[in-house]
């Protein structure tokens, strides 16, 4: 356990940032097991925060036409169609005259476009894409038999996962730590917010975010991301997405309480046989000191487009500094020193 406040658990994140008398830290617990994929969170977020439309392209990633989080999408609902079972759910396909899964076909059609896009899915939602003509081969798997298959050829297990992603409001926020202007700051609620009138569009935060969340808007270059509805919090309201979520998949509250709630829900799901359920971002010992917005997932994080082991870039800064101090020129040393002191200097 390090004690340098650049990584690891931090009990009073707002206090560390200089908020003397502050409310409890708040956040989101997103229980993806009850997400119905309605995208009300995406719409409510855009309505409240006046986030612009993000492109009118059909992505073909199941029902996901947003792609990923970006400057113009602060909430993103992922849809994953998988040939595997969800707990004891009976998906009803066993015994039907089916052939192999189409999963590869969907991936083959979407994958190359994802690779072409500069920022992955985000670009899918913002820039026009070449739409395949029906005469082009999309690399659909060459199925050995036409028509219907049964038995071993047939697909039986299936599940459809949905999950609303958002800025994690990390305990150790890479974006905030590297921001040279002070545009990014830690609020009294423990959340991380960009001040648009200060941001100079340098873009350090984009590479500083271990989740690929923060993004610059092409029009003015300024960094954009979820504010956890800072203005609503100040007015005693819950964030727009959580307010709009019909099934309470997105739960807003005090982080300590949300963590307890998440632990109970995880135990409940394990009890009813959904053993694949796990919490993501809940652990204060992880690479970002735990997330202010954490999740209950039903598969590996990668399946949802989330990094499996996110680490705040500044975690290794002290050891880098030591090594640098021993070996590097004083010029370089001073540069890093200034950088670090800025990062820990009361803006956290």
């Amino acid at each position, binding site marked *: 356990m390090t004690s340098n406040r650049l990584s690891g658990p931090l009990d009073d994140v707002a206090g560390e940032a200089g908020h003397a008398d502050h409310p409890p830290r708040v956040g989101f617990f997103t229980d993806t097991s*009850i997400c*119905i*994929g*309605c*995208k009300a969170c*995406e*719409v409510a977020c*855009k*309505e409240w925060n006046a986030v*612009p*439309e*993000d492109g*009118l*392209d*059909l992505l*073909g990633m*199941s*029902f996901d*036409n947003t792609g990923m989080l970006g400057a113009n999408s602060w909430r993103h609902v992922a849809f994953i*169609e998988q*040939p595997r079972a969800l707990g*004891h*759910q*009976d*998906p*009803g*396909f066993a*015994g*039907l*005259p*089916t*052939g*192999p*899964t*189409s*999963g590869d*076909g969907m991936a083959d*059609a*979407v994958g190359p476009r994802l690779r072409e896009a500069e920022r992955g899915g985000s670009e899918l*939602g913002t820039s026009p894409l070449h*739409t*395949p*003509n*029906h005469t*082009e081969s*999309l690399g*659909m798997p060459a199925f050995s038999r*036409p*028509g*219907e*298959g049964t038995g071993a050829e047939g*697909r039986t297990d*299936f*599940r*459809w*996962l*949905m999950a609303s992603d958002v800025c994690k409001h990390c305990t150790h926020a890479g974006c905030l730590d590297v921001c040279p202007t002070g545009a990014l700051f830690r609020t009294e609620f423990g959340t991380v917010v960009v001040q648009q009138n200060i941001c100079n569009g340098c873009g350090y935060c984009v590479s500083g975010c271990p989740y690929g969340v923060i993004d610059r808007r092409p029009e003015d270059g300024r960094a954009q991301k979820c504010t956890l509805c800072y203005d609503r919090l100040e007015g005693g309201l819950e964030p727009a997405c959580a307010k709009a979520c*019909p*099934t309470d998949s997105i739960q807003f509250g005090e982080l300590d309480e949300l963590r307890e709630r998440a632990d109970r829900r995880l135990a*409940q799901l394990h009890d009813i046989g959904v053993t694949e359920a796990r919490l993501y971002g809940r652990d204060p010992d992880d690479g970002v000191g735990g997330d202010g917005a954490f999740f209950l997932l039903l598969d590996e994080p990668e399946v949802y487009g989330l990094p499996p082991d996110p680490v705040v870039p500044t975690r290794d800064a002290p050891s880098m500094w030591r090594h640098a101090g021993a070996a590097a020129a004083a010029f370089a040393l001073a540069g890093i020193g200034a950088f670090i002191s800025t990062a820990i200097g009361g803006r956290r």
Partner: protein
Amino acid sequence: MGSNMAEAHPVGFQWVVEAKSRGARVIHIDPRFTRTSALADTFVPLRAGTDIAFLGGVINHVLTHDLDFREYVRAYTNAAFLVAEGFEDTEDLDGLFSGYDAETGTYGRDLWQYESAEQARTEREGGEGGGDSAMDQERTSPMGHGAAGAPLSGTTGDIAQDPTLQHPRCVFQILKRHFSRYTPEMVERICGTLPGQFREVCEAWTANSNRERTTALVYSVGWTQHSVGAQYIRAGSILQLLLGNIGRPGGGVFALRGHASIQGSTDIPTLFNLLPGYLPMPTAGSHEDLPTYLDDLRSPTQKGYWAGADAYLVSLLKEYFGDNATEGNGYGFDWLPRINGDHGTYRTVMDMVDGKVFGYFLLGQNPAVGSAHGKLQRLGMANLDWLVVRDLAMIESATFWKDSPEVETGEIVPEMCRTEVFFFPAASHVEKEGTFTQTQRMLQWREKAVEPVGDQRSELWFFYHLGRMIRERLAGSTDPRDEPVQKLDWSYAVQGGGAWPEPSAQDVLRRINGYRTDTGEPVGGYTELAADGSTACGCWIYSGVFADGVNQAARRVAHAEQGPYDAEWGWTWPSNRRVLYNRASADPEGRPWSERKKLVWWDAEQGEWTGDDVPDFPKKTPPGFVPPEDATGPDALRGDDAFIMQADGKAWLFAPHGMLDGPLPTHYEPHESPARNLLYGQQGNPTRKVYGRLDNPSNPSPPEAHREVFPFVLTAARLTEHHTAGGMSRQLPYLAELQPELFVEVSPELARIRGLSHLGYAHVVTSRAAVEARVVVTDRMAPLRIDGEVVHQVWLPYHWGGSGLVTGDVVNDLLGVVTDANVFIQESKVATCDVRPGHRPRGAALTAMLAETRARAGVTIETGTTIATAAGVPHLQHTEESS
């Protein structure tokens, strides 16, 4: 079943999620794996259009294994009643009931009657029994009997019955015979549902339906939009009644409505054949005066609350015509319009095409995109003198004359289109005050949040001033046909000044609630209404919503501050009752069936019904009450007549009246089907309305030849991200970007057969149209094995049209018009189609391709019009014009 609740009713679905977290098991039965299935414990696929076969199978399972809630069934349903001799079932007539007239394609229902106790006695003495009801063959007036079906005279005691349920002609035994052939094997062959899954559903349903447990059934337009739609709901109701799930907490049949306040627009209807509160619209010829109408509506000696229909109707007339309605003029009954046939929306559109209709108002409706057979809709609207469109945006139904697909094919020429279109911008729901009536029959008042912008105005404003101006224009007329308008009481309170003030929605609600005509004091509920002109009431079932002069719909008491049924949140009709027929939540002696499922009960000490909900029963009638012979109305209800609106006080497993297509639900194949009916020679609903016209062609179905031209089952529905015909969503960037383009979902198997690739283009083809869409190949779609043959289903969302931020072909163009005979709802949830790779042809090439396809399928005007195919009746073609 027939519901994609998570996608189409996401806000209501929170309660399903809540129930699931408390241990409820959720089963989703549907043609395709949807976002609802994703959250269900079990998904059960079936072929679109076969739900009655499935439900019939469950009913058969219940009856075969004696799993019905026998005490409930015996006390509260008509299971014990005897049906008169002469009734023949589908078992006897190859899929028809007795009384079928092949000429008209309708039933005479005099052979579906109960046997009266008198008859039973006569028969025992060797006499001749006979039907006692006049043959009321009203082909044109399917809802001619309003909410409660037809009147039945007398009390329950007059109906012959066998409490042991053993008599071969008792409803219970008839039911048993009728469904005996709906075996699990038959369910598998018809629906494609595998026996293991089917058994699982049967076991879950029955295991959770007893004294301690209840099962809720949810359906939506996936059930109603079929040529047998009304019978789908009957089948669900029969099952829920057999299992004791009606009138009890956690039970019920939940009809999720298609839009905000669609419930309200049937309660106070926008339907041609109903008056407010499900009172039937009078029929020309048969309802010459008030007494004749009332006698047809209800028998004066009838039991239950429908006996008060005279008070409801007279109070409605008093509200319409005010002081002009007097006893002497039958309270203005003559001023009500009469119907003389089918004036439903589809008949009306065909009449437009035929030049019989001159003007059309469209309010919050976009038929060019949202109604079946979009082309017919557009051609009809192109042949009017005038068309008024009130909407939030310039929708396709206002611009069809210049940019519809028919302009491209040359079928509409903008310069020659005769229709003059008037577009009025409408105020949205946040720009006006009023109520929404949601799916639970709850009225909720909403305030105006912002002032309407520019010329946008509320519907209330539009109709108030339209009525005012027409009345001014007709004030001096001596033409008798203007009299109804002249005599209207148009004295609605207005707010604000000037020449164009806004009417007070609160005052309208007060008048809907009803008031005493002498003092103007609001009445407390419908039981205070009178047939002598002393009360006025705009909709008797809403009476009470303004009780004590308080807007009850505006109540917002928090959950924590009131009882378990949130009685002070909004107001639910009737009488703020949350569960209808809740007398059935108690046993015949008035005790809750169980502590766990208690709702209302008899308080012997106080001598009245009480409980957590407003009791749906005469408050002081004890459980064991037996009414005197001469009692009528509510006084004639026995202590166990839980179904207080029914003329016999019982829930109807067998419907002796009210249904035009049979007293019991029967599986008929959809109008367009890939399969022969395996149960009977009768293929489709023998009473369905087929509208056989050149502009309404059908794809051939067995026993007709060439079904192979349209080999796939087509079904269409909604996405969460859009609103029906798209007028409220395709214009909005935040919604349009979420589902930006029309797509067609196909299984990997169908993709291989037709050479379709994910995200490529395809076009779906029927005998009416070809619709182009992007292909989405998904595991969520799976083929089924129907009677040994693999059947593929394809699905499209139907939200796109030619205008807005995102555009696309109109999916409803694929459908023809065929309707259920009871309610004239179109069969838009199932048809047949072909799917071909690539873009569709355009312009003249499209017309030619469709003509070629029709020719290949042998489609003529006669195709699909042979509605009777059972043995023993003539197989006549029902066309409206010759080919």
